[in-house]
């Protein structure tokens, strides 16, 4: 009898017709094998962004046999390895709902245990019906698992409302902040082809045209891929917004060294050196820049239009 009672509350509302208005019906589904909801939920997320994979292929990437489960950090790392950008959402239900409305499935961690025994479980939220306050999930062996909002919130709280979107390059989650998104992108950059990083920063600049961190990251990417003019424009724009931006002064100085513009390089290196006094972690790089700039000789004749 009690076994029935335990499962009954997990099952939730019995019927709710499939409705594309409230639900991402096209999200793939992989029923999980024993203990392996991590690989199954991750496959659901990755395949929905166009990655060709299966839970079986993800087992060696995220599953820990002795723990009979998968860690959150490893789920994120695996998404990055597959060239996708995982982003932890703000820990509230409204952020989760906003992402679903924007068409992004959301990976969640729930504690389905009882009586103080933890039972951690990954599922993928694919929809929400506001009229009935029901969340729709791809979960375990159920392709379309309906869960009452209050029950979901209770199970979700135990894992500190952990919710993650996994998006392809160029598609920014609806609730992303500039700082959070740039951090996420920086983590995935080494696994992304240049064209994907281009698309990502183009989208980020469109959404946050005057955000210092976005400008810096995008300029750094342009610089690293040899697009010096584009990088120089972004660094300058950033310095108009934040005249005391240490990294912008420093990196612009490096760029001007590469372009042979001694006067500009030395001016920016000097400013960076002053600012570095408050930023010991960045000081070694700045000193190196100043040294390189100092070795250049200023020749007025060479200071043509290119160095303005």
């Amino acid at each position, binding site marked *: 009898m*009690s076994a029935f009672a*335990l499962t009954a509350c997990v099952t939730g509302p019995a019927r709710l017709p499939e409705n594309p208005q409230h639900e991402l019906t096209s999200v793939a589904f992989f029923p*999980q094998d*024993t*203990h*392996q*909801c*991590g690989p199954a939920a991750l496959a659901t997320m990755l395949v929905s962004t166009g990655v060709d994979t299966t839970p079986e292929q993800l087992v*060696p*990437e995220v*599953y*820990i*046999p*002795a*723990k*009979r*489960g*998968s*860690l*959150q*950090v*490893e789920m994120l*790392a*695996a998404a*990055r*390895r597959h060239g996708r950008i995982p982003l932890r959402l703000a820990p509230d239900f409204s952020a989760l709902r906003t992402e679903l409305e924007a068409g992004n499935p959301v990976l969640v*961690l729930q*504690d*389905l*245990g009882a*009586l103080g*025994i*933890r*039972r*951690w*479980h*990954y599922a993928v939220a694919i929809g929400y019906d506001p009229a009935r306050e029901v969340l729709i999930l791809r979960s375990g062996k159920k392709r379309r698992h309906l869960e009452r909002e209050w029950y979901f919130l209770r199970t979700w709280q135990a*894992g500190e409302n952990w919710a993650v979107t996994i998006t392809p390059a160029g598609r920014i989650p609806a609730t992303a902040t500039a700082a959070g998104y*740039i*951090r996420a992108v*920086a983590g995935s950059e*080494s696994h992304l082809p240049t064209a994907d990083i281009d698309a990502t920063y183009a989208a980020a600049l469109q959404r946050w045209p005057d955000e210092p961190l976005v400008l*810096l*990251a995008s300029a*750094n*990417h342009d*610089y*690293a891929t040899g697009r010096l003019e584009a990088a120089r424009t972004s660094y300058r724009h950033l310095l108009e917004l934040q005249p005391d931006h240490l*990294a912008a002064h*420093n*990196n612009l*100085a*490096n760029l001007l*060294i590469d372009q042979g513009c001694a006067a500009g390089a030395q001016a920016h290196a000097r400013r960076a050196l002053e600012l570095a006094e408050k*930023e010991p*972690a*960045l000081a070694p*790089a700045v000193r*190196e*820049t100043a040294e390189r700039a100092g070795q250049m000789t200023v020749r007025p004749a060479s200071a043509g239009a290119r160095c303005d």
Partner: protein
Amino acid sequence: MRFKQMIAAITAASFLSLGMHTTASAGVIGTPEYLSAADRAGQIARIESTLSRADVQAQLVALGVNPADATQRIASLNDAELNLMTEKLDQLPAGGDGFLAVIGIVFIVLLILEITGVTDIFKKV
């Protein structure tokens, strides 16, 4: 003992190169460096990350992960994540299924009911 330390040192050294970020030239502050300098936790994590990588890999292998897979898995963790795994791999939630745990709970509940005399399922022999 010596041998183990040597292996650890070699593994740590091989991970050194994995942690490096490529930048256009030596003095440039790359985005990851800038971000990790921005928060103190990031700075500490950076310093410790080289040693942690070898350490976490050994732990994963001890938990049944194939050594080659473990190396790959660790390579894509960032410094803060690595730090988290070094410090509390035991406590971190591992999302699995836990179905056996539920059966266990049900059994305990039945047992308590039985002992307290509410039911007598187990006496019908």
